[in-house]
């Protein structure tokens, strides 16, 4: 098999960068969001939960198309970014990060939400009676107990961003080095009937996906086993 072109390697690194950045942003945004959803009794909760879940049911191209309009010069987001001196988001790496974060949001918020909901209120109340304030309780009780959820959220967010195609296609502009990610490069090769190159990329992505899921299951299992050992 002939080696991958520099253009394809650039797509690999770009994709890794995009996935890492997006996952980080997702965890930073998703954690307080999931926490609020887990604990709030506000009447806004069902609406907020629906909005977060929206990317799961919307076709990615629809999401991408509306982002193209919103982030463009005539859209509210575009006007805002321009007013802030940030230029416009389509065709930029930053724009892809925003799009990936929106598209992968439910994949990160859901596992976190479930993990947070599984923590009994009584455990947190106990922590409060032991002089732990709200932030302290979050870091010393919630995070350790929600660790499997964080792992799942991280892996799913990362993997989903790597596989994201529809949204990226709509607003990426296929620019090598900044928006030509693996999924688009693959599509390109198929379009141009360069099936050999397409096979190389696709096979690599399949292997990656299998490895990622296997690692997730393996790591998620271990902590529970050591927990039940009685230390002498």
């Amino acid at each position, binding site marked *: 098999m002939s080696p991958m072109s520099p253009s394809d390697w650039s797509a690999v690194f770009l994709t890794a960068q995009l996935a890492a950045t997006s996952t980080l942003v997702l965890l930073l945004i998703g954690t307080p969001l999931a926490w609020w959803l887990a604990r709030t009794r506000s009447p806004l909760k069902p609406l907020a939960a629906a909005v977060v879940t929206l990317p799961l049911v919307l076709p990615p191209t629809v999401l991408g198309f509306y982002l193209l309009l919103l982030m463009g010069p005539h859209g509210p987001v575009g006007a805002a970014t321009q007013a802030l001196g940030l230029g416009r988001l389509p065709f930029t790496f930053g724009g892809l990060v925003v799009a990936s974060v929106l598209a992968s949001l439910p994949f990160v918020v859901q596992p976190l939400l479930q993990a947070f909901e599984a923590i009994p209120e*009584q*455990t947190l109340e106990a922590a409060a*009676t*032991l002089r732990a*304030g709200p932030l302290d309780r979050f870091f010393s009780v919630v995070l350790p107990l929600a660790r499997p959820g964080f792992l799942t959220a991280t892996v799913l967010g990362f993997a989903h961003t790597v596989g994201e195609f529809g949204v990226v296609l709509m607003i990426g502009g296929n620019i090598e080095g900044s928006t030509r990610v693996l999924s688009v490069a693959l599509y390109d090769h198929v379009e141009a009937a360069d099936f050999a190159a397409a096979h190389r990329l696709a096979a690599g992505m399949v292997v990656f996906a299998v490895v990622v899921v296997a690692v997730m299951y393996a790591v998620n299992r271990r902590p529970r086993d050591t927990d*039940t050992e*009685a230390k002498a």
Partner: protein
Amino acid sequence: MSQARTERKPLHAQLRAERGAFLLDVSLELPGTGVSALFGPSGCGKTTVLRALAGLYRATGRVALGGVVWQDDARGQWTPTHQRALGYVIQEAALFPHLNVLANLQYGLRRAAAAAQQGALQNGLDEVIELLGIAPLLARRPATLSGGERQRVAIARALSTRPQLLLMDEPLAALDAGRKAELLPYLTRLQRSQDIPIVYVSHSLDEVVQLADHLVLMDAGKVLASGPLAQTLARVDLPLALGDQAGVVLQAVVAESDATWHLLRLDVAGAVLPLWVRDAGQTMGQAVRLRVLARDVSLATAPQPGSSIGNQWPGTLEAVADDGHASSVLVRVRVGADGPVGKTLGVAVLARLTRRSFQHLRLGIGQAVWAQVKTVALLD
């Protein structure tokens, strides 16, 4: 005791809350020492009161421990739970599953250390570990402990921060009879050795009479009675609240043993009474609590030498009131006093009679009667 004696800090609480059809309206003055029990049927609001004292539930009103005000809505003051110097134990223990026992104990200790000296607190931890007998459990994880062990750890953990007040919400309710019996001695030791006031919520009168010094009776969001245990139990106007369990609690000391009949004589505090109970191996001079249920006490207008009942006490009929059922009445008799000008005031016992007998014997307030006590239950 290693802890320096702190000044008494009585607990004042005025709390109001509305939850659907349930209305809570209580005003409490609890002593700053010993165990105050909140007793009542399920749904009477006792847990709500406890949670409100802890700040876990926001009722309207005022809560103050000694001079420290934790809540005062009139002045817009609210101290959140994590800034209140209290300890809290619930029936589910709620230990941190991701930490072992020692780490659980150190959790609160570390945080309270910011407000006090680290060294003094560490000593406190050793004492509490010994008190609850959990030294062999320190390296274990909560998931590997039995229910009783978990509760002991939870109590030790609540004490680790040297709280000024310990709140316990039915700590024995989730345990079976065996575990309960195993844990009760630890609680009595706790009650005797720690100088902090304890508010103990329970729907089990058995637990209450064994542990409480002060009794608060609640029903439907209101306080029916609040006072020292013996005094409150001796009231005749609360039969519906106490029902079949109506009866008094007496403090006594083991005075003498009779080897022939395998009996012990007990000296009842504050009374001159001959009280003989079965010898169960108690030591001389040991302090005991005993319970005399109203249904185990009958009355006679004269001593009955021909009766099998050995404990017959002369006394004066003090009060009478309706009992739960139309056929019976509850009577309070003062026994063991040494005369109207004597220094010994005697103690009260309750007797349950049929109204018919009451009429038949022509009983009335102030009359001299003999209380025939068939059964006495030792609580320790």
